[in-house]
């Protein structure tokens, strides 16, 4: 009796380690391949602008494991989060309003498209006129770019709400705030999350752009400074840090999404 039992338990353990190995492989496989080909490239070709991975790694350690982390990375991160939060609030709020009202949508759409088409770098001077050259401008620049994917996705998500569900709400007198809370936000949830994810990477891009103007600190500013100073490995290490930052933030967002949209994933949606 004990024989088969132990065997089975060993089996379970074997499959568990197997599964962990598989997970590690799926997460790290492609990046590892990329690094290897990068190394290969830099060994066969001498290129001032593409230093070898080892050189960049060294620059990374030297550059970022220092007081720069406090002086440059943290302020950048704070501005990014502030801008992102602002954009999320404005994007979802405005998006719900616009998505629910065809009139408002018709009136607001060209105006929004107008602003959306204006590249943030040319908008910077204007924002600077209004918000000064402090952190306010940077936060606004970040928000002004992040808001679009959130806004558009929210509008689309709200417009695509299931008609039968909307009717159900109307019938049971579920109106206004509780309609928002119980129907509109969860119903548009998957689309809103898509927008939030898009916005995150745009936010990082704009964090860099905003620090290119009227700045004297920040991750983006430092990268640009390295670029201008032709400190190429340091510059790449900064770009790498941006990628890492984006990755970590995206992971956090995904955890949030898992929680918020558990009903969506559990339903079998997305198993394709």
């Amino acid at each position, binding site marked *: 009796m004990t024989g088969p039992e132990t065997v089975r338990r060993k089996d379970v353990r074997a499959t568990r380690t197997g599964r962990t190995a598989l997970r590690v492989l799926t997460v790290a496989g492609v990046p590892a391949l990329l690094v290897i080909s990068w190394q290969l490239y830099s060994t066969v070709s001498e290129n001032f602008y593409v230093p070898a991975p080892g050189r960049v790694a060294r620059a990374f350690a030297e550059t970022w494991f220092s007081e720069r982390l406090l002086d440059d990375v943290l302020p950048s991160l704070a501005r990014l989060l502030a801008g992102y939060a602002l954009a999320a609030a404005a994007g979802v709020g405005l998006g719900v309003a616009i998505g629910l009202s065809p009139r408002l949508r018709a009136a607001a759409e*060209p105006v929004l498209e107008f602003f959306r088409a204006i590249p943030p770098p040319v908008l910077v001077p204007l924002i600077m006129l209004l918000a000064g050259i402090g952190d306010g401008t940077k936060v606004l620049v970040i928000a002004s770019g992040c808001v679009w994917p959130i806004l558009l996705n929210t509008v689309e998500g709200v417009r695509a709400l299931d008609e039968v569900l909307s009717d159900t709400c109307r019938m049971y007198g579920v109106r206004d705030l509780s309609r928002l809370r119980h129907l509109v936000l969860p119903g548009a949830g998957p689309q809103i999350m898509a927008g939030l994810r898009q916005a995150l990477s745009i936010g990082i891009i704009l964090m860099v752009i905003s620090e290119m103007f009227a700045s004297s600190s920040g991750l983006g500013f430092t990268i640009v400074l390295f670029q201008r100073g032709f400190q190429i490995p340091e510059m790449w290490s900064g770009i790498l840090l941006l990628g890492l930052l984006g*990755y970590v933030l995206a992971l956090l967002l995904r955890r949030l999404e898992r929680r918020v949209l558990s009903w969506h994933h559990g339903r079998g949606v997305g198993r394709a």
Partner: protein
Amino acid sequence: MRRGTGFRVAYGAAGLGGLLVALEAVSRLGPVDERFLPPASEILRALAAELATADLWTALGETMWGWALGLAIAFCAAVATGMVIGSVPGLRAATHSTVEFLRPIPSVALIPLATLLFGASLGSTLLLVVYASFWQVLIQVLYGVADVDAVAHDTARSYGLSAWSRIRHLVWPTALPYVMTGLRLAAAVAFILAITAELVVGSPGLGLSIQAAQSAGAVTTMYALVVLAGLVGVAVNAGVRALERRVLAWHPSVRGEAPR
């Protein structure tokens, strides 16, 4: 639908009109100095003057060409990649970390690379435009592919629809609303990067004209060009919207448009 178009145009024009009035008011009465933000009427006058020059049209043409080409490349590549990643089980997990890592790397950080590879030419613009707009579409496609209805999916499987048919008849239409949003996002981002590339790298086009006006202190001309960029954006959006109404006629978001 016919009534719908008139309705949209009327309200849209009202919205833009309101914006102009607000802009005029801000600089004439408001907190901002007229010299740094000229009133809307003067910007429009300068725009009219600019529009009469051939240079502007050449610049605009160059920008639009870089934009269209870059957007087309990014869109096709992203849709194809997204469909493959989204439909092959396991691939999504395997690429997730890489996608999330590469995506937030700002295109602007690629400028040295772009200059190195292509110099101040169309190639640089394309590199930046394609890189930035690719992710926009890809993420939307991935979300769209994940949204396939379970019952519809089972239906397709039980009728033995091949992988390709499933993509064509089930996955693609489901993802289409997301893709259209992605296209609209990407169209704008591509346009922004086309101009930014010209601004920063100095490839020829509207962005370079803006940069020239800016560095010469010609504020009114600069804002006129910025307004032009905005108007191009409005036009591009109207085009994508029209396309969307055609291809998404069945979708609740579009069919709910007609007053029921």
